């Protein structure tokens, strides 16, 4: 099965407090359904 590339997994996303997390942390603890929103509107 195709995997998320390591360089993509290492990208950073911010939580609501502005703290940075590795993208990979989103699926590290359990599988994740990740919805990429177009915009907040």
């Amino acid at each position: 099965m195709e995997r998320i590339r390591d360089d993509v997994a290492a990208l950073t996303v911010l939580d609501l407090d502005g703290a940075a997390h590795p993208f990979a942390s989103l699926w590290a603890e359990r599988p994740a359904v990740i919805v990429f929103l177009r915009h907040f509107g």
Partner: protein
Amino acid sequence: MFCRELAVQVHREREAIRATGAELVFVGNGNTAFARAFVEDYAIDAPLYVDPSRRTYQALGMRRPGVLAFFLSPRLLAAVARALRGGFMQGPIRGDALQLGGVLVVGRGGELAFRHVAEDAGDHPDVGELVRAAGRARAA
């Protein structure tokens, strides 16, 4: 309107997603203030992150078409009608108006159990398919 339409539809199924052992996670491309407003407005009960740089979007192949291509898609026009019937009106846009979205279902080792990259703003995956993909995603 589509952003909210998809977000609300998937959010409604969050318990079905969790029943598979997966979690629903949102990623937005605006700033954290917009994200907080979104969470409050829609009573979002799921983790939400932002990527203002949109680097994850770009890396995953989520397009950002030019203005003309964005509005000329015939499928988009059909989707506008669908969204209006569903009562979804466009609110003020907070984030990159042209950035398209998508959905991934990712196992704990980074395996892609499902990927949907939107071809235009009204192009949404089937929510039932997302839940089934969550069931396939590796939990070990």
